[in-house]
């Protein structure tokens, strides 16, 4: 046990200092004496050794003094600690004695307390045992009394209940017997009534069987009547289609003929009305399953499709088209697409405010072309959208549930089914309803394709359904087409189908025919002149007698068609005919037609001079020149004020003839033909070119 050093334990430097100092002084004296006493020669070394020895002595004396002082301090501390230990031992002995005394006192106290508690416990136990015995005797007595009382009460209760039971049993038995009797009686009555009912039902059954037979007969009749009405409607619709197509062609020709702006405005108005009527006829035809409209011989560009659709609705001026697409729809499907679009546009225009615009967007996608029609009119609810989509899906082909306003959607449904269009409705961002119509890729044609073999293949592959449709139509009890026409009409109409099929090939072979013509001399010219005659006649501008006897053998179809148009008020195959008509000369005809008058004039006046003059310019140059000249002349004549007054001239078909030779008979003819009309001048407005020229010269 080492206690920390007390301050007095370590010897202080002050207590150490005197001894080394004294030693140093003594050593210095001794060294000095030794140096002085030593020989002169060894004085240096002696001094050095003396000084070193003195220093070592001083150090040794210092260390020794330090050790002595430390030992003295340690001895003092040891004595103090020894005294402490003795004191502590005495204290422990005292404490041990105190503890033993305390223990003895507590033990005695505990024994006394235990003896007192044991006495108390014994006393209490005795008292409780006495109480318990008294209580047990009292309870036993009470129990006996209660048992006797309960036995008595139980006997009384049992006697009473037995009596009640007997009385109840007797009463219930009586009631049961009465009820059984009543039920037996009712059962007998019910049985009698049911047998009567059965007889009556048997009679009803016989009556219903008879009724069912009668209704079946009536259903058959109604079905027959429906089929008949349907075919009659289809027939009428076909006729109406043909009429409107013919009227549209007439109107188009008149629009070219009449240059007065007032007349043109009226003609355009009529044109618009007729186009709408034609759409209605097309709708009826589609709904009755007849053929749809006319077929185009060539693909129709998307712009024309959209404008054709617009032209058939009332509010076409509110339709805005946004389209940069150059894609075209194959000829056989163009009419259907146009018709479906027209119905969608009509819906959009009708169900939007009269001033709101309807926007049409065309977008080419890999699957085809999407035409979206967006209006800002009524917002269709979810249920209405679903119903409209169901209507345009073409799933239900029945005519039931058609109403006047839903007609268009049903038509769209039929057309979608036929041509694979997909129509869907959605709310439009413009606030109204948007319709998306997907025109599938297989009825689309690239714009430059018509003359490529691929387009020809398309046309020929799509042609068989055409003949199939017409064949199935002619098989129906009341066919809408050729059989109702006059006899001379039928071969022409039937001939139109194969020629329509052959169309691309004939078009392709035409350039080969072209160079051979000039070599034939005069003959090709008459050939051309004949075709010029028949082409406007096929348009059906006005009835003409001169075009009928003229047909050349090569154009017998067009000639007979033209004659049929004039004879028959119902030019049924007109919707098919433009294909062969344009087929005769699809590209060169329009340009040449304007030169027709001059060519005919030359031919009728002097064939020899014509033959002499012809070879000098090439045929193409002459045509171009005459076309430009005649258009100029027509335009000049249109603005001449006395043009309408002098408009009793000949028709376009014979306008090339000189007035002094053929003018009178033809005007007579016109008057006889148009004696019913109020204003023959306005109808036969197209005059010979010579009449205005005569006015100019006079």
């Amino acid at each position, binding site marked *: 046990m080492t206690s920390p050093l007390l301050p007095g334990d370590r010897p202080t430097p002050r207590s150490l200092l005197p001894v080394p100092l004294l030693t140093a002084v003594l050593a210095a004296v001794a060294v000095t004496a030794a140096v002085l006493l030593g020989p002169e020669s060894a004085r240096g070394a002696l001094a050095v050794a003396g000084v070193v020895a003195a220093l070592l002595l001083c150090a040794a004396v210092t260390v020794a003094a330090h050790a002595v002082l430390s030992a003295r301090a340690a001895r003092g501390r040891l004595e103090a600690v020894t005294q402490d230990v003795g004191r502590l031992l005495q204290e422990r002995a005292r404490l041990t004695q105190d503890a033993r005394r305390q223990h003895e006192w507590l033990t005695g106290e505990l024994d006394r307390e235990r003896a007192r508690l044991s006495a108390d416990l014994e006393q209490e136990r005795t008292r409780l045992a006495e109480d318990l015995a008294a209580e047990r005797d009292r309870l036993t007595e009470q129990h006996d009394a209660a048992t006797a009382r309960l036995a008595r009460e139980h006997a009384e209760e049992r006697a009473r209940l037995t009596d009640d039971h007997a009385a109840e049993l007797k009463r219930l038995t009586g009631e049961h017997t009465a009820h059984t009797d009543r039920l037996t009686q009712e059962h007998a009555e019910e049985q009698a009534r049911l047998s009567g009912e059965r007889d009556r039902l048997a009679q009803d059954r016989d009556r219903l069987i008879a009724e069912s037979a009668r209704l079946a007969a009536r259903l058959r009749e109604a079905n027959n009547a429906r089929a008949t009405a349907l075919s009659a409607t289809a027939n009428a619709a076909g006729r109406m289609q043909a009429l409107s197509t013919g009227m*549209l*062609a007439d109107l*188009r*020709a008149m*629009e*070219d003929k009449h*240059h007065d*702006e*007032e007349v*043109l*405005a009226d003609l*355009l108005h009529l*044109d*618009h009305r007729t*186009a709408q009527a034609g759409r209605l006829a097309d709708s009826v035809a589609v709904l009755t399953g007849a053929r749809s409209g006319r077929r*185009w*011989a*060539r693909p*129709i*560009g998307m*712009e*024309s*499709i959209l*404008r*054709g659709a*617009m*032209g058939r609705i009332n509010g*076409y*001026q509110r339709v805005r088209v*946004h*389209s*940069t697409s150059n894609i075209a729809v194959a000829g056989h499907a*163009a*009419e259907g697409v*146009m018709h479906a679009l027209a119905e969608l546009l009509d819906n959009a225009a009708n169900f939007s405010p009269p001033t709101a615009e309807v926007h049409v967007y065309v977008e080419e996608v890999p699957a085809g072309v999407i035409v979206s029609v967006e209006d800002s009119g009524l917002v269709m609810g979810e249920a209405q959208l679903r119903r409209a989509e169901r209507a345009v899906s073409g799933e239900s082909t029945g005519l039931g549930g058609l109403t006047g306003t839903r007609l268009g959607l049903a038509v769209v449904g039929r057309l979608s089914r036929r041509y694979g269009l997909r129509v869907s409705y959605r709310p439009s961002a413009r606030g109204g309803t948007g319709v998306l119509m997907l025109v599938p890729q297989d009825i689309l044609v690239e714009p430059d394709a018509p003359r490529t073999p691929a387009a020809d293949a398309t046309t020929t592959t799509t042609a068989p359904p055409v003949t199939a449709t017409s064949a199935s139509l002619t098989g129906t009890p009341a066919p809408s087409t050729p059989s109702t026409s006059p006899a001379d009409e039928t071969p022409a109409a039937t001939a139109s189908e194969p020629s329509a099929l052959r169309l691309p090939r004939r078009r392709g072979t035409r350039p080969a025919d072209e160079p051979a013509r000039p070599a034939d001399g005069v003959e090709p010219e008459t050939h051309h002149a004949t075709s010029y005659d028949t082409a406007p006649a096929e*348009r059906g501008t006005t009835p003409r007698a001169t075009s009928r006897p003229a047909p050349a053998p090569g154009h017998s179809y067009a000639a007979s068609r033209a004659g049929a148009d004039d004879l028959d008020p119902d030019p049924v195959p007109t919707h098919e005919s*433009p294909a062969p*008509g*344009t087929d005769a000369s*699809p*590209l060169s*005809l*329009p340009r040449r037609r*304007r030169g027709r008058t001059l060519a005919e*004039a*030359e031919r009728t*006046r002097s064939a020899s*001079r014509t033959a002499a*003059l012809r070879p000098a310019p090439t045929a193409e140059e002459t045509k171009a020149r005459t*076309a*430009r000249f005649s*258009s*100029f002349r027509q*335009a*000049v004549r*249109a*603005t001449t004020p006395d043009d309408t007054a002098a408009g009793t001239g000949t028709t376009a078909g014979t306008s090339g003839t000189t007035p002094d030779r053929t003018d009178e008979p033809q005007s007579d003819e016109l008057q006889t033909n148009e004696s019913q009309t109020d204003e023959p001048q306005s109808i036969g407005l197209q005059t010979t070119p010579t009449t205005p*020229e005569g006015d*100019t*010269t006079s």
Partner: protein
Amino acid sequence: MSRPGRDDAPDRLYTLTQGRSRSGPDNPFDLVTLVVAECDPVPGMQSEHAAILRLTGRPTAVVEIAAELELPVSITRILLSDLLAAGRVSARHPRKAAVPDLDILEQVLVGLRNL
């Protein structure tokens, strides 16, 4: 040519002009007005407008345009006024000297009759 034959296209004349059938009173086009294109056709244009712009690369008379398009002159004039209003064509009248006098016309007529 966009229209190879009469009534061989489904679009009706009134759809070409949005229903207008007469040109405005200040329409500068008469039959012999020369029309020159001021720009090239752009995609998205009405096909007749594009055809007119192609035709009038050099000065062309209104009647010639009408003949080439096979449209009535009135309709052509409406189309031309649209283009003029948009600044895509310019129009000018031929000089007076270009119109021959009536004597020459009469002589031409006589000559034509003698053909």
